[in-house]
């Protein structure tokens, strides 16, 4: 009960800070904070497909593109309300995710990586060709929303927060129930899924769909933050940043997406003056994380606890 109370107090305190934050930081800092929230939300989709289901999925930023372009097209060109546009685009991305999942469900490791990368290229190619929707190779400006009479920066901040709370809460809930356990069974012991009545293919498809859905939700907001998107926006450089989000943060934990998003956005700021060398920073941090900290930064605390427990054991045995 005390723990629940502490969690509730912490949540209320965080919510209070989040609500008043725009009054205490300048527009650029608020933009960065919103970017962290959007990156963390998109990272949740990668945690679901890579961390929980164990599938290599390299089409994630292409799904963000579906969210960004789709939302803007429905909202700006067709006059659909913005939130409904976002939801419809995310549903479209979920369908594409499931379609990609069909061949992907039969592939593993290296072949799965190549297949999803190829699908990402196909989607980006579609962005180039569908110029009435996307503006083609030149890209398209994004119509900025203003909700509740707030200025755009505040609108984006509050929508990003609301979306992140919904996505994190719902995904956390799913992860703790039967659905999440079945995904992990696919990841760790696919050979035994059938004997438990679990269809590994079905759960892979659902994970691809859910991951695409979440990526597109984040993508819709990402477009708002960038104000202008082109097919190049959703290419390998952004994919690498999202791999850094989940692998530096911790691919198995939702909190890893938050830590990883902070790491990436802060790194982007610190190294923005070094041009292409920025990519070296992300590449290097990815290699170092995978090599020396496979569970990411969020695994540090549990590892330290385990080391302290093991250190104590011999002393307890002697006493």
């Amino acid at each position, binding site marked *: 009960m005390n723990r629940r109370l502490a969690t509730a107090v912490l949540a209320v305190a965080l919510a209070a800070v989040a609500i008043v934050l725009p009054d205490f930081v300048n527009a650029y800092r608020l933009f960065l904070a919103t970017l962290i929230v959007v990156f963390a939300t998109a990272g949740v989709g990668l945690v679901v497909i890579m961390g929980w289901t164990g599938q290599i999925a390299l089409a994630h930023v292409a799904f963000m593109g579906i969210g960004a372009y789709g939302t803007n097209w429905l909202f700006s060109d067709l006059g659909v309300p913005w939130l409904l546009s976002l939801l419809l685009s995310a549903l479209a991305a979920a369908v594409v995710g499931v379609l990609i999942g069909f061949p992907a469900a039969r592939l593993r490791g290296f072949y799965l990586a190549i297949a999803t990368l190829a699908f990402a290229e196909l989607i980006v190619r579609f962005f180039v060709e569908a110029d009435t929707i996307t503006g083609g190779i030149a890209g398209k400006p994004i119509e900025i929303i203003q909700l509740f009479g707030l200025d755009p920066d505040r609108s984006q901040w509050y929508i990003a927060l609301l979306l992140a709370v919904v996505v994190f809460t719902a995904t956390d*809930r799913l992860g703790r129930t*039967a659905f999440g356990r*079945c995904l992990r*069974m696919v990841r760790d012991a696919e050979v*035994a899924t*059938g004997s*438990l*009545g679990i269809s590994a293919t079905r759960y892979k498809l659902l994970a691809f769909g859910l991951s695409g859905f979440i990526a597109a939700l984040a993508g819709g907001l990402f477009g708002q933050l960038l104000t202008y998107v082109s097919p190049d926006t959703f290419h390998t450089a952004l994919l690498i940043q999202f791999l850094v989000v989940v692998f530096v943060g911790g691919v198995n934990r939702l909190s890893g997406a938050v830590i990883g998003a902070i790491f990436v956005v802060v790194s982007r700021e610190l190294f923005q003056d070094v041009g292409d060398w920025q990519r070296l920073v992300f590449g290097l941090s990815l290699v170092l994380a995978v090599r020396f900290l496979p569970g990411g930064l969020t695994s540090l605390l549990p590892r330290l606890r385990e080391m302290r427990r093991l250190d104590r054991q011999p002393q307890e045995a002697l006493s």
Partner: protein
Amino acid sequence: MSGVMTGGVSRSAGRAGPALSVSDLRVSFGGNHVLTGVDLDVTHPFTGLIGPNGAGKTTLFNVVSGYVTASRGTVKLDGADITGAPQTLVGRSGVARTFQTPKLIGDLSVLENVLLGIDGRSSLLDQVRQAVSLRGRGQANIDRALSVIDTFSLADSANLDAGSLPLGSQKIVEVCRALVSEPSLLLLDEPAAGLGRDDVERLVEPLKRWAAGHGTTVIIIEHDLELVTDLCDDVAVLHLGHIIARGTPAHCMSDPQVVEAYVGISDRGGADGDKGGAIGKGAGGVNA
């Protein structure tokens, strides 16, 4: 075997025919004929499936549980033909199994691993309802899983990560996961391999009680002949892809064909067992 048939609500006792009926089962991998015509009716609560390495025991399990498709023959579960049915369908029709090495999720708790035995048989709609319910819709499942865990004396470990447990406990967790769905047929693939005598005791006695109480039919592949003798009153000996002996453990262990299959010759009177010409029941080192 004692006590297994007595007491409890026995599904097996209420059956008109065999729990499992395998007829003329043949499996080949390329030119390698692994099963060459297996006929097996299982009517006892505990049936031991033994035989030397490479006899085809695990392949038989794989066919029954839908992992491998037979090139010929039929598999019937409680009279229903399940030949060639996909593994998920077989799993949902009441067949549960374990593997030689436990297939658990190391970073989930023992309780969560056992819950997977129920999860896989629940519909997707139920799973979504469970996820959105604020009233603890999954509590009944949790109680069921905890009850099985408690039966096998693992209640203290229910909230520990399964990966942190020793191998013996992990194997028992896998048995719990298989049993929690209350299967009509349980296939145990070498459950005692790598286990100490204490772990075997922790596994066997609750398993006997469970089977008697729930009417579960158990087929067990095991190298530990002492365990087979203790648990099973019916044994089938598989050798080179077909059944060479069937009957009580004592009958099978003294069968000349069985002795020959194990030690290569059939007339080494007394040299290989504690009874003349038989394989001793304590022959833990002999591959079954």
